[in-house]
């Protein structure tokens, strides 16, 4: 076994443990570069992360590595993190990859793309039980994005161009107190 595959092997060992944790805290996976990705089993455990922050804008994007339009727009969400907007914008990427592909596909993808935004995995196959809790207008198609802030709640079931995302986020940031 090559030395560099040891972390992957350890992660693989660890993954089955995650499958038994039905509730409670998330299980953490780590990319080779050390980025932590928390896996939430059950929407209930993830829900607290989807609350509007006190003074800033939170942009929550639902995506998967197998979703081509999602992957295409990811760099635009990354730019929101880099542009920073004076620290007023946070980006949370909620990944919906299949459980068995988290280690084989998601972690290498994040590493290769150098994703800086926070990434969590929602692993709750009973989607009918939680889609409405994200937004009642959501049909379930991805990509989908929720914008939350003080007095701001906007849900979009669509893919964004760089310009449309920048324009929308800028308009929200201008509304922040």
């Amino acid at each position, binding site marked *: 076994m090559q030395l560099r595959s040891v972390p992957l092997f350890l992660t693989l060992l660890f993954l089955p443990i995650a499958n038994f944790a039905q509730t409670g805290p998330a299980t953490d996976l780590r990319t080779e570069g050390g980025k932590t990705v928390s896996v939430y089993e059950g929407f209930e455990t993830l829900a607290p992360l989807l609350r509007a922050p006190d003074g800033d804008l939170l942009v929550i994007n639902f995506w998967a590595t197998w*979703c081509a339009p999602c992957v295409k727009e990811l760099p635009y969400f990354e730019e929101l993190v880099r542009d920073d907007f004076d620290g007023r914008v946070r980006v949370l990427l909620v990944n919906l990859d299949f*459980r068995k592909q988290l280690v084989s596909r998601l972690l290498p993808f994040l590493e290769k793309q150098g994703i800086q935004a926070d990434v969590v995995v929602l692993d709750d*196959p*009973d*989607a*009918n039980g939680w889609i409405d809790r994200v937004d009642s*207008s959501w*049909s*379930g*198609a991805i990509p989908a994005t929720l914008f939350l802030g003080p007095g701001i709640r906007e849900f979009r079931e669509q893919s964004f161009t760089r310009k449309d995302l920048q324009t929308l986020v800028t308009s929200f940031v201008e509304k922040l107190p």
Partner: protein
Amino acid sequence: MNAYISALLFFALSMTVTAAPAAGGYEVGDKATDFTLKNVDGSMVSMADYGDAKGFIVIFTCNHCPYSVAYEDRIIDLDNMYRPLGYPVIAVNPNDPDVQPEDSFDKMIERAEEKEFPFPYLFDDGQKIYPQYGATRTPHVYVLEKEQGDLIVRYIGAIDNNYGDADAADEKYVADAVDALLAGSRPEVSSTKAIGCSIKKKK
């Protein structure tokens, strides 16, 4: 008087606008339209061809989407189970192959042969049908019941409540809906949601 008629007209128009569902498409209880679409065997298929059917399980699905793939065997099972009882599956690929080359008609033929689909797998060429139904993702199911020559939408949504593991699914929405219709009643759960691949529109 003219103003009165204009006001009435305006009122009627605004009612039409608000009465239509925001995303377009059918709601449970609506009449569905038949279609004539090309099947992977080269024939043209309409629901009118099925004189004996009591209804249909229309499923917008495709080749490329992992959720569709995860449900393929369950879609085959649904057809094997319910076609003899009068509710055949009709699968329709709504995606534009220019946007998603894996969903081309040729690739549909390949996939149908690989999996030996027992049901027609139709191509929504020109993307005229899926917007009428209001499908937004794959897979997206519409259970239709024949009623005095009309096709009435009785269920819209997901196949079951666990895409990852058929054995772990303890709510089999489509099977339950068809069972209810076969028993002469209405589905208890008539609409559900699921995560799926957005339908790939022509650019």
